[in-house]
């Protein structure tokens, strides 16, 4: 595998990892506000909303750190990919049902339309899938540079 592939993987990992660390951090600032955002999707029962709202910020921060630092990068990328797929499905489902939702993706301040949020999340999903595939097909740094 060539150096430029490793460079693309590194740049994408820093970008995706940094994005998820930031997203998790903003959610951790207002767990109640994030629980309200999750509730607005009307998907989960009341008993699951708070445990999930409390778990997603550390999940995003840890996944972001794995991808950013490079230790267990593939697992972190897979976690980000699965999370983005779930977020896209949730926003898409809310749009189909005509719900007025605040995704809470980067804290409570978000005036984006759901369609724009869906497009943004789909773009991140595509990037994370591509980066994961690149990580699977790209050997470790030392071997790639030899």
């Amino acid at each position: 595998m060539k150096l430029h592939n490793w460079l693309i993987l590194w740049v994408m990992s820093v970008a995706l990892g940094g994005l998820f660390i930031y997203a998790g951090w903003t959610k951790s600032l207002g767990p109640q506000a994030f629980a309200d955002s999750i509730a607005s999707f009307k998907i989960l029962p009341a008993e699951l909303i708070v445990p999930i709202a409390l778990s997603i910020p550390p999940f995003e921060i840890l996944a972001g750190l794995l991808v950013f630092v490079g230790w267990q990068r593939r697992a972190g990328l897979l976690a980000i990919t699965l999370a983005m797929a779930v977020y896209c499905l949730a926003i898409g489902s809310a749009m189909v049902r005509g719900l007025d939702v605040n995704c809470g993706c980067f804290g409570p301040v978000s005036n984006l339309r759901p369609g724009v949020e869906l497009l943004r999340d789909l773009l991140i999903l595509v990037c994370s899938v591509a980066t994961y595939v690149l990580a699977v097909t790209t050997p470790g740094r030392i071997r790639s540079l030899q």
Partner: protein
Amino acid sequence: MKTISTMGSDLVNTLVLVFVSFALGLGINRMRVAPLSMTYQSPEQRLSAELAQLIAAPPMQLNSSDSIGFNRFRTIFQSGSGLILDARDKAFYDQGHIPGALSLPRDDFAASYKALRPTLDRHRDQPIVVYCSGGDCHDSRLVAGALMSLGYGEVRVFSDGWQGWTDNGMPEAH
């Protein structure tokens, strides 16, 4: 075949990450000063419960005439003729707020109201303007309704909120 095996081991590590995050999230919540209740309550339910501690009356509903837009709010801000309240979580208030605004977060309404009550009572005859994040946020309407229930007469909601304020390049306080 090797790729499938790689994905399998990645999936196992991802599941470990899910369980660690779940444990970490619940653990951090237990260490909070005010941990979240594990059963979700809507903002309306939470505020009603807090209001019940203060008064035995349901929160008042606002109508559209109780909202003010950016220009009217800016006039009140510049003339200093009203009290401005920030209904967002305290963490977001600390990150940045409208200069002179006081924090009265919807999620900590009862305790914050008790602390602010002397100031609020001094402004009982002046406009009190409440804002939150902006857009479709509900916190300002809920706090404004609660203040009306508590007998404050001239309570208004700045509908553009923090987002509208910063989008117009207005000053911020930290």
